[in-house]
């Protein structure tokens, strides 16, 4: 009898992982996922550039110097200047703001609306589920970039409209992922016990089910962040994103940059590197975060 109690106690304490501080969790993440940490460093670097662009940028990104068109990369202009004599480095720094703003808000809005719809459709089930899922099916029938293109064409080009255009195709994907996990969470005993205690449906859904979907939600968010930055660059490139003087990475690649590609390759080269690096950072971080957060993939 005594051994039984001890055993029960041992297994109970084994399942309860000790609460770790943020620093400990971060140190563990760096140790076990060096690639993910590298991604985090890239993201933090981008964030730093975006926040302090005003102080860090050596020149005004909007004002050109017509005496210095197509200047080669040099000590004064590290990444050279474009066809209006604007400093490419400064424009990339300010461009990080647009990329992060659009990337973060588009994936945040898309994933949040999608997650709420997923919880609603999985928790209530029945006709609500059927109706919402068929709606999501309709949205999923469009390739992501094509749907964003169509929405952007209706709304017209501006930064806010790009956020809306990119976030809508994210909604059905987030809804599917969250719905799948809510379907299993709904059957857990604590949900039943909460219902038995007389807790209302809305409270069960918001307080007991929603917090348990944070892992897939955060994974979706980081995965879509990189995709959203890429989509923003594609839309700006096609002339549906930010309008001309705005220093958006996609916009810097388009316009006259391709026609000057032989004469002044740095105009297109450096924004291209910035886009690739940013998306690469978010993908590395998102992948490692998924491994770290998903208990099924966690080793040891």
């Amino acid at each position, binding site marked *: 009898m005594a051994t039984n109690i001890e055993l029960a106690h041992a297994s109970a304490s084994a399942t309860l992982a000790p609460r770790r501080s943020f620093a400990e969790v971060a140190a563990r993440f760096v140790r076990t996922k060096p690639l993910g940490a590298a991604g985090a460093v890239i993201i933090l670097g981008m964030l730093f550039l975006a926040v302090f662009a005003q102080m860090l940028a050596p020149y005004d990104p909007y004002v050109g110097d017509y005496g210095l068109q197509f200047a080669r990369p040099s000590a004064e202009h590290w990444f050279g200047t474009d066809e209006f004599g604007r400093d490419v480095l400064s424009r990339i720094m300010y461009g990080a703001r647009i990329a992060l703003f659009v990337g973060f808000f588009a994936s945040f809005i898309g994933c949040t609306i999608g997650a709420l719809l997923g919880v609603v459709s999985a928790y209530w089930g029945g006709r609500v589920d059927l109706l919402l899922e068929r709606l999501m099916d309709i949205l999923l029938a469009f390739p*992501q970039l094509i749907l964003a293109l169509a929405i952007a064409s209706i709304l017209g080009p501006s930064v806010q409209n790009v956020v809306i255009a990119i976030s809508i195709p994210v909604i059905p994907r987030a809804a599917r992922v969250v719905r799948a996990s809510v379907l299993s969470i709904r059957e857990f005993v604590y949900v039943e016990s909460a219902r038995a205690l007389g807790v209302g449906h809305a409270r069960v859904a918001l307080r007991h089910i929603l917090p348990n979907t944070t892992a897939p939600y955060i994974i979706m968010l980081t995965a879509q962040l990189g995709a959203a930055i890429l989509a923003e660059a594609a839309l700006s490139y096609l002339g549906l994103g930010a309008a001309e003087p705005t220093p958006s990475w996609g916009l810097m690649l388009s316009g006259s940059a391709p026609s000057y590609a032989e004469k002044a390759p740095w105009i297109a080269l450096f924004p291209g590197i910035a886009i690739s690096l940013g998306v690469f950072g978010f993908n590395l971080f998102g992948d490692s975060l998924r491994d770290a957060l998903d208990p099924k993939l966690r080793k040891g």
Partner: protein
Amino acid sequence: MLPVITLVGTEFAFLIGGLVVTETVFTLNGVGRFVVDAVAHRDYPVVQALIFLIAFGFVVVNLLVDLTYAWFDPRIRYR
């Protein structure tokens, strides 16, 4: 084998999305550039028709992907 076939469907969508950009970059006269030009000229009927066509193609490809599961794995039966 089956996950690879599944990827064909998703990759198809991704590549059509990429087509829009690639055809603009290399000035190829394809559906992708047609969409972009129609959008640029605010030609809504053309945009609508092309988006519908692309979505239709995407759905058909995914239907074929679903059907080929049974061909590659005889244990799968559709009732």
